C-alpha cells in the first residue's frame, strides 16, 4: 500500500472544508461533504486491511524523523477508530440530505457542512496521530466545531447546552494540556513512542504521576465518563439531528480511544496498576452503567433518553478496559464500534420522528408506531441491540464482557451488566410502549399546517440511512468477523506490552 494514503485521510477534509464554507447552495455543500466522507471511508478501509495483521504504517510529516517531527504510526487500533468515524460520517451525510434543509437556516448550509467536515477532520486527526501535542490541536478542532454545531439546535436550550459543553470541554482540554506539560517537563519529548521507550528513566518522578492524573481527568471530561458526564445529555439532546447522530456515535468514542492509547501505549500498564486505577475504573464503569441506565429510564424525552443511555454504554467500555484481559479489551473495542452503530441508528430514528412530528417527547408520540411501522421496526431493532438480545451486535459485546469478568472472578461486573440490561429493557420498553401500545388516537403532528405534503411520510434519504444502520446492527450481530478480527488484533497488540497477572 502506498503510505501517502494515510495522510490523505486528513488532507482531503482539510482541503475541502474551506471550499465548502464559501458556498451557500445546499446541493453543492452536501456533495462536497459526501465526497469527503466517502473518500475517508474508502481510505480507512484500505488502511485497516493493510494493518489488521498487526503490522503498522509509519508516516513522517514534513519528512522529519520523530521525535523531532510529528509522526503518524498507524496500527489496527488507529485504523479501526478511523473506520468507525468515517462510516458514521457517511451515514450522517446520507441523513443530512433531507434533514439539514429543515433544521438549519438556509444561509448557513455551506458553513454548517464545513463545520461538520472540520469536526470529522479533527476526529480523524486524533485517531491517527502519534504525537501527543498534535493530538491536542486536533482535539480542539473537533471540539470547537462541535460547540458551534450543537448550538445550531432549534431550541434555545441548545445554546446553553453548547455553552456548558464549551466550558467543560475546554476545562478538559486544558487539563489534558497541563498533563502533557508535566509529562514533557519530565521526559522532554512529545512523541508517544519516544516517551514510552524511555519511560523507565523518569518513571518515579512526581511530575509523571501528576501529569497522568491530569491527562486522565481531561480525557474523562471529554469522554463523559461517569461522574464527569454532566454536559452530555443536554448537548446531544438539543443538537440538530445530524449533529446528534454524528457526535453521539463518534466524539466520546474517540476520547475513549485516546484514553486507551494513554493507558496502554504511553504509560506502562504496571504503572497504573500500582495506582489502583483498574479498580477505580471498574467501580466508575459499574456505577456509570447503572446510573446512566436508570436516568435514561426516568427521561420523558426520546433524545435525552438516548443520551443518558450513552453514559451507560460508556460505562460498559470502561469496565472492559479495567478488566485488563483479552476478552475485556476485545469487548471494549468492539463496543466502540457496536455502540456507534446502535446509537447512530437510534438517533436517526429520533431524527425521523422529529422531522415528521416536530417533537420527541414520549408523551406526544402516541400512535406513532402504527403510522410508521418501518421506522418503528428499525428503532425496535436497534433498541434490542442496546439491550443485548442474541443475534444483535449488543449481545456480542456483552458476551465477551461477561466471559472476561467471569474469568477474573469479578462478580460485581456480572451483577452490574445484568442490572444494566434489565434497566435497558425497561427504557427500551418505555419507548415501545409510548409509541405503539398507546395508539388509541391518531398521531398528532405538532405545529405544522394541515396538508403539508413533505411531512406525510418519512423522506427516502432519512429512511435509507436509518435502515442501513439497523441492518448493520443485525448484520454485525450475526457476522462478527470484521469487528472481531480487528478487536482481537488490537487487544493482542495492546496487551503484548507488559501485564502483571
Amino acid at each position: 500500500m502506498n503510505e501517502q494514503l494515510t495522510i490523505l485521510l486528513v488532507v482531503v477534509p482539510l482541503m475541502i472544508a474551506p471550499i465548502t464554507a464559501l458556498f451557500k447552495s445546499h446541493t453543492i455543500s452536501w456533495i462536497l461533504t459526501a465526497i469527503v466522507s466517502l473518500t475517508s471511508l474508502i481510505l480507512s478501509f484500505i488502511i485497516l486491511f493493510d494493518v489488521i495483521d498487526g503490522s503498522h504504517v509509519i508516516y513522517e510529516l514534513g519528512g522529519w524523523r520523530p521525535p523531532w517531527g510529528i509522526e503518524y504510526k498507524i496500527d489496527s487500533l488507529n485504523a479501526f477508530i478511523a473506520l468507525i468515524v468515517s462510516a458514521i460520517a457517511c451515514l450522517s451525510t446520507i441523513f443530512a440530505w433531507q434533514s439539514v434543509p429543515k433544521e438549519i437556516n438556509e444561509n448557513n448550509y455551506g458553513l454548517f457542512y464545513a463545520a461538520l467536515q472540520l469536526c470529522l477532520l479533527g476526529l480523524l486527526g486524533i485517531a491517527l496521530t502519534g504525537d501527543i501535542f498534535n493530538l491536542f490541536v486536533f482535539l480542539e478542532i473537533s471540539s470547537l466545531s462541535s460547540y458551534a454545531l450543537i448550538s445550531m439546535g432549534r431550541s434555545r436550550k441548545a445554546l446553553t447546552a453548547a455553552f456548558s459543553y464549551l466550558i467543560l470541554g475546554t476545562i478538559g482540554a486544558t487539563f489534558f494540556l497541563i498533563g502533557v506539560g508535566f509529562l514533557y517537563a519530565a521526559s522532554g519529548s512529545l512523541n508517544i513512542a519516544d516517551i514510552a521507550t524511555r519511560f523507565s528513566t523518569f518513571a518515579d518522578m512526581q511530575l509523571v504521576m501528576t501529569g497522568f492524573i491530569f491527562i486522565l481527568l481531561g480525557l474523562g471530561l471529554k469522554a463523559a465518563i461517569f461522574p464527569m458526564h454532566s454536559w452530555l445529555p443536554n448537548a446531544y439532546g438539543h443538537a440538530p439531528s445530524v449533529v446528534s447522530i454524528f457526535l453521539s456515535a463518534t466524539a466520546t468514542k474517540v476520547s475513549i480511544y485516546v484514553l486507551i492509547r494513554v493507558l496502554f501505549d504511553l504509560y506502562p500498564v504496571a504503572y497504573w496498576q500500582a495506582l489502583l486505577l483498574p479498580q477505580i475504573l471498574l467501580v466508575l464503569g459499574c456505577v456509570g452503567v447503572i446510573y446512566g441506565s436508570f436516568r435514561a429510564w426516568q427521561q420523558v424525552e426520546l433524545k435525552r433518553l438516548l443520551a443518558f443511555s450513552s453514559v451507560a454504554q460508556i460505562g460498559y467500555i470502561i469496565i472492559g478496559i479495567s478488566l485488563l484481559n483479552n476478552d475485556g479489551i476485545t469487548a471494549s473495542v468492539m463496543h466502540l464500534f457496536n455502540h456507534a452503530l446502535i446509537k447512530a441508528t437510534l438517533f436517526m430514528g429520533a431524527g425521523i420522528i422529529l422531522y415528521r412530528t416536530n417533537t420527541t417527547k414520549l408523551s406526544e408520540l402516541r400512535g406513532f408506531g402504527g403510522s410508521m411501522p418501518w421506522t418503528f421496526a428499525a428503532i425496535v431493532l436497534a433498541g434490542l441491540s442496546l439491550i443485548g438480545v442474541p443475534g444483535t451486535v449488543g449481545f456480542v459485546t456483552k458476551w465477551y464482557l461477561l466471559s472476561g469478568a467471569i474469568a477474573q472472578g469479578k462478580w460485581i461486573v456480572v451483577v452490574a451488566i445484568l442490572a444494566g440490561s434489565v434497566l435497558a429493557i425497561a427504557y427500551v420498553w418505555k419507548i415501545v410502549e409510548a409509541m405503539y401500545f398507546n395508539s388509541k388516537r391518531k398521531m398528532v403532528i405538532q405545529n405544522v399546517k394541515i396538508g403539508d405534503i413533505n411531512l406525510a411520510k418519512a423522506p427516502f434519504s432519512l429512511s435509507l440511512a436509518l435502515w442501513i444502520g439497523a441492518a448493520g446492527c443485525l448484520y454485525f450481530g450475526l457476522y462478527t468477523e470484521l469487528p472481531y478480527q480487528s478487536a482481537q488484533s488490537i487487544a493482542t497488540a495492546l496487551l503484548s506490552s507488559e501485564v502483571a497477572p
Partner: protein
Amino acid sequence: MSLMLNLVLLVFLLVMAIAVLKTKHLFAMAMLFGLYSLLVAGLFVVLDAPDVAFTEAAVGTGISTVLMLVTLASIKDGHEAVSTTQRKIGPLIICLVMGGLLIFGTHDIAKLGEIHSPPNDQVAAHYITQGQAETGVPNLVTAVLASYRGFDTLGEVTVVLTAGIGVLLLLGQRRKIHVKKRGQAHDDQ
C-alpha cells in the same frame, strides 16, 4: 536579576487575576483582563520568549479584550448580578485539591532556568544545534513552528478558521426582532 523581575511580575499577575475575580463591574473587568494579558506578555519577554510575548500582547490585550468589550456593548449588561445562590465551597475545594496536586507534581521539576533539564536536553537540543543548518532559518521558533512541527501550525490555522466559521454560524444572520420577549423565544419557534 531576571528571576526577581519575574517574581515581581508574577505577584502583580496574581493580584490582577484576583481583581478580575472580585470586580462586579464587567467593563472594569475587561480592562483588568487587558492589563493581565499585558503583564503576561511582559513575563514572556523576561522568559526570553519574544515571539510568544508578541502574540500574547496582540491577542490578549488586543483581540480578546476588544471582543470582550464589543460583547459587553452588545448585551448592554455591565454588571454582574449579586447572586444569592453562589456556589463557593465546592469550587474552592476543587481548586485547592487541584492546586495541591500541581504543587505536589512540581516537587521534582527542574528549577527555573536550569540548563540541563529534560525539556532542554532531549528533543529541543536537536533544534538548537541543527535547526539553522537543516532549515536555513535563524529564528528557531519560526524553524520549529513552520517546518519541524508545521503540521501543528496547519492545525492551528484550521482552529482559527473553525472559530471563524462557528462565529459566523452563530452571529452571521442579522437579528430578526431586536429584543425578544421571554415567551417568544420558546422551544418551538
